[in-house]
């Protein structure tokens, strides 16, 4: 399983390095979301800074939809979805590999966006350990949910519109937990975010486990 996961993650990341879809499209999209929120709320940093955590995670959430769609569009083109099924790769390994590749892309995106919210919204990125831990746990949760529902939607003609409908409601607890953990860290009381970190970690563990179990049947049926 781990060999297959490394193989799939390496392949997806190599393709991303070549195509630069995440770098040239997803990151600018997320930056535009952050910028537009700033325009909508006005230049008053006393309004923007308290909202920074929520706006940051909404941008990450929407970007995760794009990253997931891209991850599965690789497998639909040229019949490679059949190729995945014929390869003999362990479906759990495919799930873990695709999830890992999306995690790497989202973590890079979050690093860029966190600088963006610091500059645009005047957010002070204190409580670094809680911020980083929240990013890690929330990203694992978001990516695993995205890959599970990406597999559900990928075999359907309406996959582009169906995926957000499936993904966003399920990912809502991650949005809530990550926003609260960041809020606590940004407001100077990072210990207050530990409870939310536990929620994020539990969500990530549950969805990784679900993905490992159901990805094979989803690959067959969807």
């Amino acid at each position, binding site marked *: 399983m781990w060999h297959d996961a490394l193989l799939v993650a390496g392949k997806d990341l190599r393709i991303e390095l070549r195509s630069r879809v995440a770098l040239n499209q997803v990151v600018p999209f997320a930056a535009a979301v952050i910028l537009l929120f700033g325009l909508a709320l006005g230049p008053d940093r006393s309004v923007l800074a308290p909202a920074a955590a929520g706006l940051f995670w909404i941008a990450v959430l929407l970007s995760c939809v794009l990253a997931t769609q891209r991850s599965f569009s690789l497998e639909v083109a040229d*019949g490679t979805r059949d190729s995945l099924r*014929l390869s003999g790769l362990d479906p759990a390994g495919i799930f873990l590999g695709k999830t890992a590749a999306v995690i790497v892309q989202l973590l890079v995106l979050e690093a860029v966006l966190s600088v963006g919210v610091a500059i645009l919204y005047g957010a002070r990125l204190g409580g670094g350990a809680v911020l980083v831990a929240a990013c890690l746990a929330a990203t694992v949760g978001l990516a695993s949910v995205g890959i599970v529902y990406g597999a559900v939607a990928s075999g359907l003609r309406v996959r582009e519109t169906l995926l957000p409908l499936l993904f966003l409601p399920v990912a809502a607890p991650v949005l809530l937990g990550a926003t609260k953990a960041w809020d606590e860290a940004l407001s100077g009381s990072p210990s207050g975010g530990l409870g939310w970190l536990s929620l994020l970690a539990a969500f990530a563990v549950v969805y990784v486990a679900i993905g490992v179990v159901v990805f094979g049947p989803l690959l067959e049926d969807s």
Partner: protein
Amino acid sequence: MAPAVRLREAVALSGRFPLLAGVSLEVAAGEVALVRGPNGAGKTSLLRLCAGLVPLHSGEAVVLGHDLARDRWAVRRRVGLLGHHGFLYDELTVEENLRYSLRAAGIEPSAAIPAAARLGLVGRLGATQVGRLSAGQRRRTALAVLVARDPELWLLDEPHAGLDQEARDLLDGLVLDARARGRTILLCSHEHERAVALSDRVVDLAGGRSVGEPAHVA
């Protein structure tokens, strides 16, 4: 010796739509069987059934000793399907696609080198991203994957399509070599004369059913 492929009144559905409505055929190990029929006859579905990609609804289907009614997963590593798609990633080079496919199949990636050389995919071509290749070169790359994997059952769906004369001759040579090594080949092709010349027997399909008795090629 048990046949490599044995189907009895095999029925496969896509939803409620019948892909195969009762196909019976038997192909011995080491044989080349040509599956003929008009568009929509069920040729591609037959190959996908044998690859374990389409579930068997009713009837009997045993491929390489695997009963597809009970387990259509185990057979997948033992077959190679060259379909309408090449199963290639556009952003990866020819060599990277080959190595990835071989690693995924649990085969030493060094097998990619002679296969690529045989298909003329060496030098700059081997280092070119597949998305930049012509249709014929993509087809050669997909063939190279098949040659490198060298599965026990080759499932070839219109393998001559998109290939130039030289590549068609090369493909025919590869099929004959595979047969000489004891591989079994199921072949669908509208290149009738070429395909018949390669084949030991011919199976006709119409409307998702096998028609008449399989004929041995003289």
